C-alpha cells in the first residue's frame, strides 16, 4: 500500500450528496481482473459522452483537476456496492484524500486499504471548504496525517479523526494482511477450540 504522510494540493469539488460507487466506477468496468488502469473509468458516466469524448464542463475534464490530490464531495460519499474498484479508480486518477461530512462504511474500509484517506469534517467546515474552492479553485490545502490536521490556505488547521490502527498502517505504508497473519497461533487455537 502507498504510504501516506502529508500531502499539499488543491482540491476538486463534486458537491453532490450520496455519490454512490456505481457513479464512481460504473459496473461495466468491473470485468477487469487487475487493479490498474481504472483511473480512466473514474466517474465515467458523468465524465464522457456516449461516443467516449470527454464532457468539457465536467470538473474532472477541466484544467483544475490536473494534479489535484484532494476530492471534496457531498455527504455519504461511496454508498452502495462494496466494489474496491471505487478507491482503485480514485487513486488511479491521482486522488489521495476525499473530504466529506460522512462516508459509507464499506467504502471507508476499502479506501483506507488503498492509501486513500477519508477525511470527515463538520457540515460547517464542509460548507466553508466548498465556498472557498468555488471562489478560489487553486487554493492549496495541507493534509498532515501524523498530526491529523487539514490546513486551509490561511493557515487555520482543522483536526480530523482516524482510528489509530489505520493511521499506523497508512503512515508506514503497510497493509493489514501481515498483521493478521501474525496471529497464526491464536487463529489455530480458535479453530481447534471450535472444531473448525
Amino acid at each position, binding site marked *: 500500500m502507498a504510504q501516506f504522510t502529508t500531502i499539499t494540493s488543491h482540491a476538486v469539488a463534486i458537491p453532490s450528496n450520496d455519490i454512490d460507487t456505481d457513479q464512481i466506477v460504473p459496473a461495466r468496468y468491473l470485468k477487469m481482473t487487475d487493479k490498474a488502469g481504472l483511473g480512466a473509468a473514474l466517474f465515467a458516466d458523468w465524465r464522457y459522452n456516449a461516443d467516449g469524448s470527454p464532457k468539457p464542463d465536467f470538473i474532472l475534464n477541466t484544467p483544475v483537476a490536473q494534479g489535484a490530490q484532494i476530492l471534496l464531495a457531498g455527504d455519504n460519499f461511496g454508498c452502495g456496492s462494496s466494489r474496491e474498484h471505487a478507491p482503485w479508480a480514485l487513486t488511479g486518477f491521482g486522488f489521495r484524500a476525499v473530504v466529506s461530512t460522512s462516508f459509507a462504511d464499506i467504502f471507508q474500509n476499502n479506501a483506507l486499504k488503498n492509501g486513500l484517506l477519508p477525511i470527515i469534517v463538520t457540515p460547517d467546515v464542509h460548507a466553508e471548504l466548498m465556498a472557498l474552492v468555488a471562489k478560489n479553485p487553486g487554493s492549496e490545502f495541507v493534509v498532515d496525517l501524523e498530526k491529523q490536521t487539514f490546513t486551509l490556505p490561511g493557515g487555520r488547521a482543522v483536526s480530523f479523526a482516524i482510528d489509530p490502527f489505520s493511521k499506523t498502517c497508512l503512515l508506514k505504508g503497510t497493509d493489514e494482511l501481515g498483521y493478521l497473519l501474525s496471529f497464526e497461533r491464536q487463529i489455530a487455537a480458535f479453530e481447534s477450540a471450535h472444531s*473448525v
Partner: protein
Amino acid sequence: MPRTLFEKIWDSHVVAQEPGAPALLYIDLHLIHEVTSPQAFTGLRQRGLKVRRPNRTVATMDHSIPTINRGLPIVDPMAAKQIQYLEDNCKEFGIPLHGMESKHRGIVHVIGPELGLTQPGMTIVCGDSHTSTHGALGALAFGIGTSEVEHVLASQCLLQHKAKTCEVRVEGRLAPGVSSKDIILALIAEIGIGGGTGHVFEYTGSAIRALTVEERMTVCNMSIEGGARGGTVAPDDTTIQYVAGREFAPTGAAWDAAVTRWRDLPTDEGATYDKAVTLDANKLAPMITYGTNPGMGMPITARIPDPMDLGDLNQRAALDKALKYMALQPGQPLLGHDVNVVFIGSCTNSRISDLRLAAGLMKDRKVAPGVRMLVVPGSQDVKNQAEAEGLDAVFKRAGAEWREAGCSMCIAMNGDQLEPGQYAVSTSNRNFEGRQGKGGRTFLVSPLTAAATAIAGKITDVRTML
C-alpha cells in the same frame, strides 16, 4: 449481562484484539464470485499464500454471466476471462465452485441459504454489499472489499471494528398486496440511505416474525441500502424449519446440537440497542422509488415530492438532480406512468416465493404490448422448481422472457440492460443512475407491483388487481 443477537455472534467469533486495533473476527463462511475476487487471488499468489480454509469458502459465478444461450461461448471477452479466472483460481486453491455446469449455480445470496450453507449464528462475508441477505437466518453477514477477500482467504479472519446496533421494530400486519419489499423500501424512505451507517440492524416485531425466511431475506438484503453493514433477524421456528434438511445443513446429533445453540441466539430480554426505529406494518402501502437512490421512495399512490419543499439545500439539489435524470416532475403521480421494461430478479426478489407471487397475478394475463418483461430466477434450483410448478409456462404465455439464473439486469454487467432513457420497473435493489444500463431509469418495487405493471403497461397499484 443481557446481550443482543449481534453481540452474541460477535463475542463468539473474536479471535484476538489488541488495544487500539480492530478485532480479528473469525469467518465461518466466505462466499466468493467472479467480479470481486480475481485481484485477491493475485495477491495470494504474489505472497505465496494458500487459502487457509477452502472448505469454508464457496464460489459461484453470477454477475457477468449471460442469462441466455448458455450452451454457447460467452460473447464478451472480458466476462469470459473473468469467469475463466474464477475457474482457474478455484482449481488452484481447492475451493468448491458452483460453476456454469453446476445444478446449484446461481446468485451467491440465493444459493447460500438455499443449500443450507447459511446457518444461524454464523459469520458470513462476501465481496458483495448484499451479503446482508444472509442475516435473515440469524447470521452476522456483511459485504467486504477485495483486499478483505484476500485477508479472509489467507487467514479466515477479518479485521473489524465492532458495529453499533439498531433495532428496527415492525409491528402489525401487512395488508393484501403489501409485501416484505415494501417494508424495506418504506424503512429506507424513512431513515435515508445513510441512516444505518455504522450499524447492524436487527429486525424485530410481529410483522417480521410473520414473514417467511425468504421474505426476511428481502428485508435484510436491502439493509445496506439504508447504509447498515448488515441486517439480522433472530432465529425462530420458521428459521429452523427452513434450514432443516438442506444439503449442507447439519444432520443427526450435530443438528440437535446446532438447534440448541441457535435457540440461545435471540436477543436477551433487557439487552439494549444503540439506536431504534419503528415502523407500523398496518399503515404500509406498496412502495415505489421515484429518484436515483433507494431512499427516494414513496407509497405508490403518492405524488413526487417537490425539491423546493426541502429545507436542506444539499438535499434539494440532490432531489432536483434525480428528477432531471428520471425526467419526472415534482407533484407528479407515478400511477399510470409508462414503462418500457419490467425486471423480476436479483438477490432481493428472485426466489421461488417471489416468482410464485408474480406468476399468481400473471396467470391467464398478458404482458402489455410494447413492454419487455424479463424473469430471471435467482438460481438454477429456483429455475427448476419454478418449471416443475409450471410458473415458467405462465410467464412465457404472458409474453415474458424466461431466463437462466444470474444477477442480470440488476447490475447490467452481462448484456441484460436498459437503453438510454428507458424506464424500468424492477424488483432489484438499486436505482442509481445507470445501474441497469447507461441512461436507464429505474423504479424499485415488489414482485407483485412489477407483475401488475407488466400487465397494465404502466405503473399500477396491485391492490386494484387482487
